[in-house]
Structure formats: structure tokens, C-alpha cells
């Protein structure tokens, strides 16, 4: 088991290096590009397989226990240990990451990215995967930071080299924002580690903040939280996200929204909640406030973009919707109750699946129409996807309603539980405030529904006009890439216990200070 | 009160020596050269063999017009002779001529340092003169003087260091107190180096390239007339005295002699100094002038290695006998 987890983290890294080397004689393929893209699929596939085996071998009876742990001393000087492990909180994220990356690799195999050298592309995607998986698997604060940073460079290059319009500024904005955040986070992590004498997350979680004075906790939460909030992204630190999404290639957008954003919220749950409960308590109301502002802001921004004549970019719109969705996740975390945190984790996964799917779809639309601009697409009456590419249109509509939180689909449970959590926040938090937040959040769901339906109406419906060239419907490889996401969305919507059963014990344990 | 008198007396004596002995050397040079060249030299001034010739010269110089060229750097031009002369006066203060406390102007504990350092200042006078004259020949001469000083200062220093090693002190009376007769053969190389280097520093023939009249008129002193010129000349002879005195003290045992050291030590000193001064004059008459490159080569490739060898020898012997 432990080797499996280590393999999951290391394999993409080795794969990335291997991608840069010339292909061995047996694996040359039709041409070098094809060979390297196939290599990407192979490696991510193997990683996915390994993660699935890991999930299968996971002791579902004790999801709160760290499993598949590896604990090796790496840098004694800094007390950095290669401490890997997974529990109910991280396992779903690992699966999600491996799945999305595999799907991205598959997508790229059939539709090579527009831009230079697929070799570098594959290497970067693999590096990204390694960093993300490591973020979810490590149990050492500094290692967490390392993994957190590791995704920056590949993402930067994915945006800056394979992106669309205005890719350079967007890439810069992305990296400078997140880096500034993460450096400040590092200071917070160091403060925690130096004050408590260990960087081990398990030990720190067990300690539950007893070794840290309240003032240290407050400072640490402020610093660490800032870094995580930039990544999440929390309003008002979100402004890099729309640009990055708009500029990024499809694969980049999928991974960014589906996986990278989760690293921020995961950090909140994994580090701040258990390690610095007092500090978190202090900031929870503010966090929640920012979260609901984010929800409303994201929705309003989307509404503005969806309006006819606003020249709204679909990718941008989905990016803003992510701000709203992540607002729910943050609200859930801010409640500091098992219900809320479970909801947050659920919403996390759901958002990964649905937004991933949405970006794939929008990417496909953009490929077919050459633009993702809503006005251009829809024209006066609408893009009429239902008519011209019914399966594509159908999937888009499905993803949109999943995103707006239709009961029975994945998006529903997360928002539901979050609002429940806000209805009855943890002891010590102001209930009236959270009730207010809850009602605002509920209003947010309505707004979400509004803009999503507008989008569906404008893109999928409308009058079918003659076009110079026909629009292809969903292709086989696209279907292969999207089906798992759609299926999982339905599964999680219909059978939330699959996830909640994993997360709940772990969350209970976290909030209880390591005692379960 | 006694101290003040004592000091005043010493100063007066030193000053007197400084005024008289160089004149004696100069007069001796006139006569010795003349006889060596088969002529008589000055015969009239003062009567007996022209003994007052240099005094007469002095009077003549004092009456001459003092010309400062229009282009010259006035202040420096006028100061240069004094700068060239005064260091020798100060050196004489430190040279012991007898064994007792009273036979030296002033005991200075870092004597070798003091004399070598102060003697080095003298060249500044030549350099100032060469620079301030605004004359090509003067400048060239001044620079040659400087180059010569630079080249020969090092062997001089090294040779002096050898004596300091042998005696284990840098004080001049201290060195003399430690002197043994066998130092003579032991330090002979150093003595030669010191003496030759000293000659070169004084720009005495055969090392008088910087003031070679056939090449650059009179080098740095070309533009000088009258009293200032006389001071330069005086400086040259004072230099001879100082050099001979120092060589005597450092290498020839100063007031040590086969007999009568206690009472007549000063005689020995003066005698040795006199002999050396004679050698200086003798060399002027016998040797042809060295070319500028030969000058430099002699210093760097002969004297310095010799001096280094002498130091090695001194060190080894000294450690061996301990």
C-alpha cells in the first residue's frame, strides 16, 4: 500500500523526465509527438490505476486513520520528513486528480494541444500531476508547501505557451498572485512549525493547537489562510482566476479548476482546522463573510457576462462560477462543524467533476466555433447546439444543471450540507451571523441557477441557421473523456454516501482534535 | 637647565659637523682628483694649497643672482634645495662616533629605520627640483634620480637588515656594542652592497647618469643658480659624509679598533669615514659612467640577490652560533 502511494506521487515525476528523453526504440510510434502523447496517457493511466487500487485497498472501515503511510526522514536539519499518507479526506481528491489528469492526457492524445512541442506539454502535465497528488498525499508542512509550489511552474508554462489570447499577462498574474500568497503561507507554516517544534501534520493535528498560543495561531491562520485563500480563490483575491482560465488551454483550464483550486480548500481543512483551531475560530466569521460575498459576486459577474451583448467569454463565465462555488466550500469550512466541512469536501469533489466537464465542453465548443465568446456563439437567437450537435448540447445542459446544484446531481449535496452547516455553526461562532450568511448563500444558489439557465438557453437553444460548415457532434474520444465525469456526477448525486462515508469520520476526527 | 644646555650643545656640534665635514670632503675631492689626474687643483684661495677654495666658492654663490625661470612652479622650485639638504643634517644626529653616551647626537632606538627613512626624503628634493623647473632635461633628470633611488633603496635596506640581524637590534649604538672583529668578513658582501647602493643614491660617479652633463646638462639642477645651487652641492657632500659614516658604523665597527677604543674611539670612526670618503673620490676618478639600463640592471640583478644572499648567510650563521 505504502509503495502504491509513493508510486502515485513519484511516477508522474519520473514520467515527466522520461517524456523529455528520446523515445526508446520500441515505442517510437508514428512520430515523436504521437509517441510522447501516448507516453502521457500511459503514465497517467498507470497512476490512475494505482490510485484506484489504492482506493480499493483502502480500509473503508477506518477512513479516519492515515493509511498507506510512508515516513522517512529527508532533511533532518529542517525536520522535513517524507511523510505520506491518505485518509478519507484526501483519498477522493487523489482519485479526482488522477482521473482528471488521465482524461486530460487522453484528450490531448486525440487532440494534440495547439502550440509548440507536445513533449514539453506532456512533461509539464505530468509534473503538475505529481505536484497535485503530492499536495494531497504529504503529511509534512514543508513538504506540503513544496508540493503546493511545484504546480506553479508547469501551470505557468501551460498557460503561457499553449494558451489563447493574452496568455502572457494571464500567466504572470496567476503565478505572481499564487506565489505571493504561498510565500506568506510559508511564513505561517514556519511559525507553526517553529513554535510547536514539529512540521508533522499528523502530530500537529493530534495536538490540536494546544502547543500554540492563541496569538501565534491568529498570526499563523492569517498568513497560511492568505496563501490558501489566494489559491482557492477567495473573493477578493480571485482576480487572477478568470484571466488564467480564459487564457489557458482546455487541459489547463480543466486541471486548474478541477484540481488546483482544491489544493487551497484542502489546506484549510487539513492544516488550519485541526492545527490552529483557536485562530480559525477567530477568523471563521470573516472567512464566511468573504465566502458569501464571493458567492454573490461570482454569480453576479456570471450574470453580467451571460447577458446578451456583454461579449462574455464562456470560459471566463465558468471561471467566475468557480469563484462562487468555491465560496460555498469556504463557507462550509468556516462553519467548523462536521456537517459544513463534509459539505465543503463534497462540494470540492463535485466542483472538480462538474467544472472539469464544463471546461472540456466549452473547449470543444471553442474548437468547433473558433471562439468561446457568448455573443458570437449565440448570435441574435442562440447557438442552437441542441439542433446542430445534440449530444454536445445535451451534455452541456447536463453539466450546467449539475453545476447549479440540481438535486440528484453532485452539485446539490455540497451546497446543501454547507448551508446546513451554516444554519448551525460550531460553538463559539455567532449564529445570527451565520444565519445571515446562510440566507445570502441560498440567494447565491438562485442566482447560479439563473445564469446557468441563461447560458444553456443561449448556447443550446435557438434557431438553427445555415452554417458554412457543419458542426461535428461529440466524437468518440471526447465521449470517452467526458463519460466518466458525467457518470461520477450522477453517482455522487444519487449516492452521496460513497463520499460522505469516507470523509465524515475523518472530518469528525479532525475537528475533535485527532480523537475519534 | 643642564639638560637644555646639553641638548643645545649637541645640536651645535652636530650642526658644526654638518657645516664643516662636507666642505673638508669637497676640498679633499678637489685636491685628490687633481693629483690623480696629474694636476694641482686649487692652489691660491686661502694660501696653503688653496684650503679656502670652497669657502670662496660659497661666497661667490651667495653673491650670484637667484634666477627662477618664468615657467617654473615657484614655491616648489625654491623649496627643493632645502628639502634635498636637511635630511642629511638629521641623519648626522643619529650617527655615533664614540663608545660613550656623549659621542652621539641623540640615541634613537630605531636608528636604522630612522636613518634610512630620512635619507630617502632627500631624493624628494631632486624630484621637486626636476618637476618644478618646467624643463625637459630637469624633468628627465628628476625622474632618473627617482628611479635610481627606488632601485637602490632596496639593496640598501636589505644590507642594513643583515646587520640588524647580526646585532639583534636596530639601534646604531646597539649595533656597535655588539660588533666583533669577525663581522668584517662575515658582512663584507653586505658592506659592499650598502656602500655601492649608497653611492648610487647620491648620484655619485659612476652612478651619475641623472645629472650627466653630456646628456641632460645637469639634470634636475639645470635651472638652479646661486645659493640654491650651492645647497644642492652641499647636500651631495653631506650625503657622502653620511654614507661613509653609516657604512663605518654598520659594517666597519665604527669606534672599534685594534687599540685605544675607549679614549680614541672617535678617531677610529673619523679615520674609517675618511678612508671611505677617499674611496668615493677615487671611484669618481677611475670608473666610467654607467648607462641608465646598466644602472638599473646592477641594482636589480646583482645587488639585490647579493643582499638576499647576505641575509641568508647572516641568518644561518647567527642561528648556528647560538
Amino acid at each position, binding site marked *: 500500500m505504502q509503495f502504491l502511494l509513493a508510486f502515485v506521487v513519484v511516477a508522474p515525476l519520473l514520467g515527466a523526465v522520461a517524456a523529455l528523453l528520446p523515445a526508446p526504440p520500441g515505442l517510437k510510434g508514428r512520430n515523436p509527438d504521437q509517441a510522447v502523447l501516448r507516453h502521457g496517457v500511459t503514465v497517467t493511466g498507470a497512476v490512475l490505476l494505482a490510485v484506484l487500487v489504492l482506493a480499493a485497498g483502502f480500509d473503508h472501515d477506518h477512513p479516519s486513520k492515515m493509511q498507506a503511510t510512508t515516513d522517512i526522514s529527508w532533511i533532518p*536539519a529542517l525536520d522535513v520528513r517524507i511523510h505520506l499518507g491518505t485518509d478519507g479526506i484526501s483519498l477522493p481528491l487523489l482519485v479526482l486528480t488522477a482521473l482528471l489528469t488521465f482524461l486530460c492526457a487522453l484528450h490531448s492524445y486525440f487532440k494534440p494541444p495547439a502550440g509548440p512541442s507536445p513533449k514539453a506539454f506532456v512533461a509539464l502535465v505530468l509534473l503538475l500531476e505529481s505536484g497535485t497528488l503530492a499536495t494531497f498525499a504529504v503529511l509534512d508542512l514543508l513538504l506540503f508547501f513544496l508540493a503546493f509550489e511545484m504546480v506553479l*511552474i508547469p501551470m505557468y*508554462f501551460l498557460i503561457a505557451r499553449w494558451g489563447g489570447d493574452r496568455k502572457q499577462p494571464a500567466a504572470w498574474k496567476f503565478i505572481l498572485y499564487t506565489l505571493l500568497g504561498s510565500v506568506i503561507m510559508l511564513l505561517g507554516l514556519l511559525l507553526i512549525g517553529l513554535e510547536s517544534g514539529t512540521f508533522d501534520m499528523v502530530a500537529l493535528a493530534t495536538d490540536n493547537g494546544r502547543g500554540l498560543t492563541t496569538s501565534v495561531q491568529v498570526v499563523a491562520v492569517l498568513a497560511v489562510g492568505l496563501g490558501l485563500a489566494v489559491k482557492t480563490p477567495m473573493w477578493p483575491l480571485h482576480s487572477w482566476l478568470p484571466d488564467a482560465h480564459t487564457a489557458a488551454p482546455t487541459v489547463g483550464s480543466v486541471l486548474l479548476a478541477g484540481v488546483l483550486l482544491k489544493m487551497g480548500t484542502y489546506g484549510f481543512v487539513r492544516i488550519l482546522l485541526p492545527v490552529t483551531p483557536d485562530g480559525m475560530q477567530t477568523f471563521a466569521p470573516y472567512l464566511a463573510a468573504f465566502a458569501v460575498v464571493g458567492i454573490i459576486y461570482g454569480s453576479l459577474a456570471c450574470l453580467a457576462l451571460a447577458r446578451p451583448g456583454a461579449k462574455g467569454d464562456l470560459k471566463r463565465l465558468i471561471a467566475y462560477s468557480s469563484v462562487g462555488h468555491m465560496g460555498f466550500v469556504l463557507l462550509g469550512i468556516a462553519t467548523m462543524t462536521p456537517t459544513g466541512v463534509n459539505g465543503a469536501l463534497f462540494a470540492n469533489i463535485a466542483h472538480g467533476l462538474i467544472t472539469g466537464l464544463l471546461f472540456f465542453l466549452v473547449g470543444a465548443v471553442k474548437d468547433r466555433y473558433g471562439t468561446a465568446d457568448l455573443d458570437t456563439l449565440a448570435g441574435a437567437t442562440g447557438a442552437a447546439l441542441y439542433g446542430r450537435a445534440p449530444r454536445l448540447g445535451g451534455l452541456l445542459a447536463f453539466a450546467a444543471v449539475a453545476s447549479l446544484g440540481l438535486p440528484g446531481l453532485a452539485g446539490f449535496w455540497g451546497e446543501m450540507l454547507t448551508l446546513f452547516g451554516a444554519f448551525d455553526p460550531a460553538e463559539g461562532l455567532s449564529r445570527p451571523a451565520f444565519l445571515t450568511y446562510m440566507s445570502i448563500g441560498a440567494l447565491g444558489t438562485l442566482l447560479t441557477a439563473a445564469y446557468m439557465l441563461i447560458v444553456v438557453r443561449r448556447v443550446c437553444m435557438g434557431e438553427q441557421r445555415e452554417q458554412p460548415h457543419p458542426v461535428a457532434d461529440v466524437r468518440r474520444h471526447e465521449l470517452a473523456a467526458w463519460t466518466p465525469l458525467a457518470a461520477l456526477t450522477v453517482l455522487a448525486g444519487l449516492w452521496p454516501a460513497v463520499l460522505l462515508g469516507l470523509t465524515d469520520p475523518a472530518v469528525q476526527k479532525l475537528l475533535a482534535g485527532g480523537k475519534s | 637647565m643642564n639638560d637644555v644646555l646639553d641638548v643645545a650643545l649637541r645640536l651645535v656640534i652636530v650642526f658644526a659637523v654638518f657645516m664643516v665635514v662636507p666642505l673638508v670632503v669637497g676640498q679633499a675631492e678637489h685636491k685628490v682628483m687633481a693629483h690623480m689626474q696629474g694636476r694641482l687643483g686649487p692652489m691660491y684661495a686661502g694660501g696653503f694649497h688653496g684650503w679656502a677654495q670652497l669657502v670662496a666658492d660659497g661666497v661667490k654663490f651667495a653673491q650670484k643672482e637667484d634666477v627662477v625661470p618664468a615657467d617654473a612652479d615657484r614655491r616648489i622650485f625654491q623649496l627643493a634645495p632645502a628639502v634635498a639638504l636637511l635630511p642629511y643634517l638629521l641623519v648626522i644626529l643619529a650617527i655615533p662616533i664614540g663608545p660613550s653616551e656623549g659621542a652621539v647626537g641623540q640615541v634613537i632606538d630605531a636608528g636604522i629605520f630612522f636613518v634610512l627613512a630620512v635619507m630617502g626624503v632627500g631624493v624628494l628634493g631632486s624630484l621637486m627640483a626636476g618637476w618644478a623647473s618646467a624643463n625637459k632635461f630637469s624633468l628627465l633628470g628628476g625622474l632618473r634620480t627617482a628611479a635610481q633611488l627606488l632601485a637602490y633603496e632596496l639593496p640598501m635596506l636589505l644590507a642594513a637588515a643583515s646587520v640588524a640581524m647580526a646585532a639583534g637590534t636596530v639601534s646604531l649604538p646597539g649595533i656597535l656594542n655588539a660588533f666583533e672583529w669577525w663581522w668584517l668578513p662575515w658582512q663584507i658582501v653586505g658592506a659592499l652592497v650598502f656602500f655601492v647602493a649608497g653611492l648610487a643614491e647620491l648620484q655619485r660617479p659612476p652612478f651619475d647618469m641623472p645629472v650627466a652633463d653630456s646628456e641632460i646638462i645637469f639634470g634636475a639642477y639645470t635651472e638652479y643658480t646661486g645659493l640654491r645651487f650651492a645647497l644642492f652641492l652641499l647636500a651631495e657632500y653631506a650625503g657622502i659624509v653620511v654614507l661613509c659614516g653609516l657604512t663605518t658604523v654598520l659594517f666597519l665597527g665604527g669606534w672599534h679598533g685594534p687599540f685605544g677604543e675607549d679614549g680614541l674611539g672617535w678617531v677610529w670612526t673619523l679615520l674609517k669615514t675618511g678612508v671611505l670618503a677617499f674611496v668615493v673620490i677615487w671611484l669618481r676618478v677611475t670608473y666610467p659612467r654607467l648607462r641608465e639600463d646598466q644602472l638599473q640592471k646592477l641594482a636589480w640583478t646583482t645587488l639585490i640577490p647579493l643582499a638576499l644572499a647576505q641575509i641568508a648567510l647572516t641568518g644561518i650563521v647567527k642561528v648556528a652560533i647560538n
Partner: protein
Amino acid sequence: MTVAADSAPGAASLVQSVDWLAIAPPVIAASVALIVLVADLFVGERHKPLLGYGAVAGLVAALATLVPLRAGDRSTFCLTDGSQACSYTADHFALVIQALVLGGALLTALLSVGDTRKLPAGEFWFLLLASAAGAALLPAARDLATLVVALEVASLPAFALVGIKRGDRRSSEAALKFFLSSVVATAVMLLGVSFVYATTGTMHLTEIAARLDDVPGRFSTLAEAGVVLTLVGFAFKTAAAPFHFWVPDTYVGAPLPIAAYLSVVGKAVGFSGLVLVTVIGFPSYADVWGPSLAVLAALTMTVGNVAALRQTATRARSAVRLLAWSSVGQAGYLLVPIAAAAYSSDEQIGSTVAYALMYAVVNLGAFAVAALVARSHPGNRLSDYRGLYATRPLAALAMGFFLLCLAGLPPGVIGLFAKVTVFSAAVDAGLGWLAVVMAVNVVIALYYYLRWTAALFTAPEADTQSGTAPQAPGHRVPAPLTLAIVLTAVAGITLSGAPQLILRFAAVSLF
């Protein structure tokens, strides 16, 4: 000091016994320097390259002697009067810095081996080795006189090295600027030293530390002035703002390998001197130098990084200038743990050492690639690096790696963790504000490092505004240069995998 007093009482104890092994590293470097100098006189023009290899061998030998010393418990030239003060101590701090400077000199030598045809070979190698010998002596020096002498032995040849390109206007100009600012710094530092000596009556750092504790009241101002002036002198040498102005001009004018040498070894010299005087010599004045160094650090990193940010890519020599400014910025980071040591303990110094080691490896690597690029693009513009990946993929990857290490981002793990140790030193010492300033600076620095990295991988543009002919295929790269790049890259990657190799210095007291 070996110059003993003539008033000292007799007895056989007067001669200090010399532990030759302990002083071997600087002595070997100096001896080889001398040998090279003499050999240069007798070696024919055809065999001049041998001198370079001789120098390399000498540096390797000097490095090798560090191995038997690794216990770090030797000292020599000790006072014979019963006090424990020694002038030369080969403790861990000294050994690590010696390894750094000798290694740095070795890499510089490798960079120059193929390049000295235009330079006077004998002089070049002599000066390099002599400077390295001084640099190796300095970290082991434990009295002010030795410190000053070592500092000068390291600096003086460096002036000549900067100006060694005959007939090159920039080279001599750079040398003059470097020289003037440096000698003024020396004079100021010496004045400080004389004041410190006046108030303590000793030159030995440990004795100074003991005696500064109870300086009589009427001398305390003098002692403070001495401490401050000494630090000002070292601040010049370390190029801390506001004493940094000579750095970019000097680096730009100097031959490229020498710029690399200055940025690594020169810095190491300044910093080890600073560490020695502050931590060993003036611990009782920590309340004076602690805050001032903290402010200097903040100022230095900000000035360096902001100026580096302002470099335009198409300017002539902008690449070297950027590296120069970035080295000023990095100097700011290096100062942080020293300032932190004032607030907590000596162990913080380890962070500076670890960071300096990382910086040395990575920065030399970057300069090595710069030297490689300069072979075909003498203008040394940042824009020359556009599309390097297309022509020299491995060099581009190495450069990218070095730059990311400097920026402190994965995959430059070692750069990241070196920064982490510096941060942790600051946080540990309660210098939160400094840590935040540094954090902001890290982000600023990231921008220009990453911009450069990004340029490496973008497609080359068709224009050649410099007018230089496009690079001929099969342009031969001299083996030593390749070796230098490979060595630094391998070192960097190894350290990234096992940062403990250098970070262990951060956790222990080196003295």
C-alpha cells in the same frame, strides 16, 4: 600574529607550533599560485594552457585537504601566553566556507580555461589562485589582523582580475570603480578596527568579545563607533545597500568568469568576514548590529530586486547586469540570518552558510551557461537567451533549473529549501517584518527569474537586432566549460534530491 614582541620573555614557547595540515587549504592555493607564476616564465607560448590545468589541479588538491580536516577541531597560531586565543581555526564554519570558495574558484577556473587565450595566462591564473588563497584564509582567521590581511589578499588580485582585459575600456573602468569603492571600504573598516583595538587592547576576536563586555563608560562611544565602522567596511564588501553601487558596473565590465567569481567567492568572503566580526567578535553589541543588519538586509534585497526587475531585455550586457543586481538581492537574503543571530543564537549563521552554498552552486551554473551563450552572442543581452532551448536544449534546461533555484521554486528544490531556512531563521528570531519583506522580494525576484526562464523556452524570433551572425551549427564548446555546467547542474540536482547535504549546516552551531 607571527610577529612576536621583542619584549616577550624568553623560553622555548615563543615559537608558535604550526599545524600544517590545518592551514593546508590556503597554503596549497598560494603555493600553486606561486608555482604557476614562476612556471609562466619558463613555459613556451604553446604550452600556456597547461598553466590553467595546473591551477585547476591545485584547487582540487586544496579542496582534497579539507577531507582530513572534517572533524573541525584544529586551530593553530595560538597565543603562547596561556589564553586560548588562536589566529587560525579550522572549525566547521571555516571548512565549509573554504570548500565554498575553493570550489567556486575551481569552477571559475573551469570557465576560464578555454577562454584565457585573450588574457595573459600566467597572471590570470596567479591572480585567481592568490585571491582564492586569501578567500580560503579568511573564514579561518580569528584575529582582526589576519582577517584584514586575508580580506586584502582576496580582494587585491580581484581588482587586477577585473581589469585584466588589456585595452578594454569597460574592463579597466570596472576595475577602477571596484577598486576605489573597495579600498575606501578597507580604510573605513581599518579605522573601525583601530577603535576596537583601542578599547579592548587585543586583536583576537574571542578576546575582543570578552573584553567588549565591560568597556568602561568613557570608551563605550568609541567602541560603538569601532563596531559600526567595521561593519560598514564589511557591508561594502558584501555589497549591501547602500554600498552596492559598484556591483553592476563591475560585473558588467569584468570578464564573465571573473564576474562569476566575484558574485560567489567575493560575496562569500565578505559574508564570512561579517559573520566572524559580528558573531564571534562583537556579540555583546548585538543590539547595535542586529537591527542595523536587519535594516540593511531589507534594503539590500529590495534595491537589488527592484533594479533587476528594471532591466530591459534588449540592452547590451543586460544578462550579466541582471545577474549582478540579483546577486545584490541575494546578498540581502544572506544578511537575514546574520541579523537573526543577534536576536537568538549563533546557530542561525548556518542558514547563511547553507544559503551561500546553494547560491554558489546555482549562480556559478548560471554564469557558466551565460559564458556558453556569450560565445556566440558577445552582447550578452537577455534577449540572446530567447529560444535557447531550440539550439541547446540541455544548456537551456540547466539554465532554467539554475534560475528556478535562484528564484526558489520547484523543481529547484534546493533553492526553495535554502530560502525556507532563511525564512525560518527570521521567524525564529522574531523578525517577522523582515520575513515579510523578504517574502515580497522573493516574489519580485521570481518575476525576473521566471521571465528569463520563460524566454529560454519560447521560440526564437527571426530578427537578429544585434547584427551578430546566426550561430554556426556545430559550434564547439570547450570541454571545461561543459564540465563546469555539468558539475553545477549535477550538484544542483543532487542537492535538490538531498537538501540535507547542505541544509545540515543550518541546524548546528558551526563554531
